[in-house]
C-alpha cells in the first residue's frame, strides 16, 4: 500500500485542562493521508488562526493531538520505537513558519545545515558535505559564499526561510511539511523557491504539504488543496477545481479577495462581516456570521462535509443534496485524487 503518513480525525484543543475553563479549538477532526508511492503537493490554506500551523505540528509529532491519531507507516507517532523514530525523522522533514525562531543564534547558519548532514550521514567527507550544502543553497537561490559563515541575525527573513528550505532539501525526505515557507520572501524570490518545490516532487518524488495563506502560490504549486476555517475543513479537493470553481462561500470570499496585479480586475463582492447570527450556545456553521448565503439551518446545525464531486468536498448546506461524508472519508477524497493522478 505504502501509506507514509496518515492523519486520522485529529483534533487539538488548547487551554482548558483538568479544572475545565475555556479552550481554543486549534483543529477539529481533520483527516489526511500521504502516500509514499504517489508523491503529491497538498496545499493547506486558510486565514490566520485557522489551524494551519497546528495541523503541521500535529503531523510532525511536535504537538500531540487531543483526539484522533497520527500514524507513520501505520504506527502512532507518539509510540514510535527508537529505530522507527530515526527513520521518521529522515522521511519527514519540516520548514517551520517563523524563520526568526528556528536558528540557534549562537551558531552561524552553517550549523543547522552541517548538523543535518552529519546526523543523517549524508556525506562521507567534509568536502562532500560542503558540496552538498552549497548545492542545496544554490537550488533555492542563495549564494553560498554570502550566506554561509554568517549569523542568522545577519540575514533577512527571506534568506532565513530559504535556508530552512535548503535544509529540508538536503535530507531528501519522502515528505516535507512546509509551513508558510515563503511568507517573507518577495515575489520574485518566492517564485523561484516554489519552482524548486515543484521540482522536488517531479524529480525526487518528494511529497510536500505546503501551508500558506497565499492562494495564488497555492494554486501555482499544489495538486490538491485543503481550505481550513476555524480549525475545520471548509473545502478540499483538486487545486484547479477548487480555485476555478469554489464551492464553499469562504473559499469564494478568499478567492475574491486576492489582489491581482491588474488595476482593472478590481475586488468584487462584499466583505463586510454581516451581523453575527449565531444561535446562542448552539452548534452552528463556523462561517455563518460572515456568510452571504447563510440560511436558518446554518445557524441551527453544523454542516457536514458533502462530497460534491468524487474528488471534491465542501462543508456547506448549499450542497445538502450531495452525499455526506463520514468525517474520516476526507482522506479518500484526497488519496483518490493522488492515486488517480499517479496511477
Amino acid at each position: 500500500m505504502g501509506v507514509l503518513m496518515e492523519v486520522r480525525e485529529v483534533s487539538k484543543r488548547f487551554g482548558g485542562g483538568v479544572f475545565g475553563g475555556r479552550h481554543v479549538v486549534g483543529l477539529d477532526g481533520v483527516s489526511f493521508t500521504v502516500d509514499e508511492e504517489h508523491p503529491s503537493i497538498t496545499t493547506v490554506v486558510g486565514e490566520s488562526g485557522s489551524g494551519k500551523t497546528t495541523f503541521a505540528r500535529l503531523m510532525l509529532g511536535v504537538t500531540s493531538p487531543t483526539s484522533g491519531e497520527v500514524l507513520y507507516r501505520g504506527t502512532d507517532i507518539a509510540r514510535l520505537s527508537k529505530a522507527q523514530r530515526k527513520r521518521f525523522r529522515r522521511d519527514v522533514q519540516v520548514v517551520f513558519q517563523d524563520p526568526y525562531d528556528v536558528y540557534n543564534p549562537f551558531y552561524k547558519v552553517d550549523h543547522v545545515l552541517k548538523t543535518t548532514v552529519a546526523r543523517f550521514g549524508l556525506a562521507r567527507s567534509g568536502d562532500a558535505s560542503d558540496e552538498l550544502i552549497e548545492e542545496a543553497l544554490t537550488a533555492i537561490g542563495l549564494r553560498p559564499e554570502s550566506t554561509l559563515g554568517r549569523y542568522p541575525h545577519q540575514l533577512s527573513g527571506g534568506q532565513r526561510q530559504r535556508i530552512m528550505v535548503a535544509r529540508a532539501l538536503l535530507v531528501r525526505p519522502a515528505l516535507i511539511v512546509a509551513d508558510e515557507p515563503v511568507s517573507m520572501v518577495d515575489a520574485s524570490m518566492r517564485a523561484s523557491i516554489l519552482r524548486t518545490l515543484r521540482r522536488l516532487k517531479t524529480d525526487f518524488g518528494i511529497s510536500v504539504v505546503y501551508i500558506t495563506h497565499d492562494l495564488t502560490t497555492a494554486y501555482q504549486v499544489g495538486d490538491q488543496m485543503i481550505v481550513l476555517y476555524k480549525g475545520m475543513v471548509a473545502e478540499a479537493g483538486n487545486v484547479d477545481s477548487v480555485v476555478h470553481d469554489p464551492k464553499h462561500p469562504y473559499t469564494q470570499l478568499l478567492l475574491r479577495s486576492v489582489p491581482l496585479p491588474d488595476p482593472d480586475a478590481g475586488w468584487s463582492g462584499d466583505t463586510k462581516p454581516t451581523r453575527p447570527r449565531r444561535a446562542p450556545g448552539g452548534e452552528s456553521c463556523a462561517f455563518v456570521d460572515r456568510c452571504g448565503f447563510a440560511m436558518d439551518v446554518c445557524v441551527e446545525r453544523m454542516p457536514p462535509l458533502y462530497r460534491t464531486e468524487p474528488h471534491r468536498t465542501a462543508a456547506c448546506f448549499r450542497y445538502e443534496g450531495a452525499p455526506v461524508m463520514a468525517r474520516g472519508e476526507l482522506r479518500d477524497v484526497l488519496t483518490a485524487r493522488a492515486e488517480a493522478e499517479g496511477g
Partner: protein
Amino acid sequence: MARSAIAPVEMWPRQIIRATVHFVRYCRRNPALAVGLVILLFLAGLGLVGRLIVNVDDSAPASVTPNLAPSLTHPFGTDGQGRDLFAALVIGLPLTLQVGFVAGAIGLGVGAVVGFVSGYVGGVLDAIVRVAVDSLLTVPALLILVTIASSIKGFISVNVIALVIASLAWMGPARTIRAQVLTLRGRGYVDIARFSGVGTVGVICRELLPNLLGYLASSFVAAVSTAVLASVGLSALGLGPQNVPTVEMMLYWAIFYGALASGAWWWWVFPGGLVLLLFLGLYFVTSGLDEVANPRRRLGT
C-alpha cells in the same frame, strides 16, 4: 577556513597576537568589560606580586607592633592584633576571591544542572524542584552556617564558608536558568535540531547550552559577587573564616576592635577599599558580559 587541526608552531605567537589585538579591539567597544577585567587583574596581581615584596608571615597576629599608622615599613599600617595589614591583605585577597569563586562556581554549577534538568525534563520533577527552590529560599543563611559549622569538626575555613554560601546560592540560578530553558525549549531551533536527528543530550549540550553560555558567564560573575557579598555579611556577624585574614575578616576585626571610633582609619579603609574595588570590578565585568551574552550585540568576524 582551513580545516587543518593545529596551526604550525611558528604561527602561534602571531595567532596569540592576533587574538590579543582582537580582544583589545573588542574591549574598546565594551569598556565596562575592559575596566572590570583590569580591576580584577590588578587585585589578582596584588595577591601575587604582593607576596614578593612583603613578608607574608607578618600577616599572622602578633608579628609586628600593633596599631601603627601607615608608614614606609607598613604601607597599610598594622592592626590591633599585630598584623601587618598589607601582608594580611596580600594573603587575604586571594582567599576572598577563593570564597567568591568556589561558592560562585558550586552554586552556579548546581543551579545550572538543576535548572537545566528541571526546565527541560519538566513534569513532576520540575514541580518538585520549584517547590524545593521556593522553600529553600526562605531559609536564613545564618541558620545554615551555624548548622554546618557546628557539624564539621575542623575550623571554619574559607572552603566551609564557600560551601555554606554555595548551599544557598544555587536556588537563584536554578530558578532563572530554568526559566531560560523553558523559553528556549519551545524554540524552533530545538525542534529543528530534533528533526535533524539530534538526541536529548545533544539538544541540551549543543543547542541550549551554548545559548546560555554568555548568560552563564555573566551569572557566574554575578554569583561570585553575590558570594563575596554573602561572605562579607557572614563575616560581619562574626562567622567568617576565622583563622585567615580574608579581606572581609579584616573588616570584621576592625569593627570588633572599634577601629571606627578609635580613629585607626587604615584598619578599615584599606580592606574596605579593596572590597569596594573587587565589587566594582565584578560589577563592570558583569555588565560587560551582559553585552557579550546578548548574541545580537556579539559581532562575528
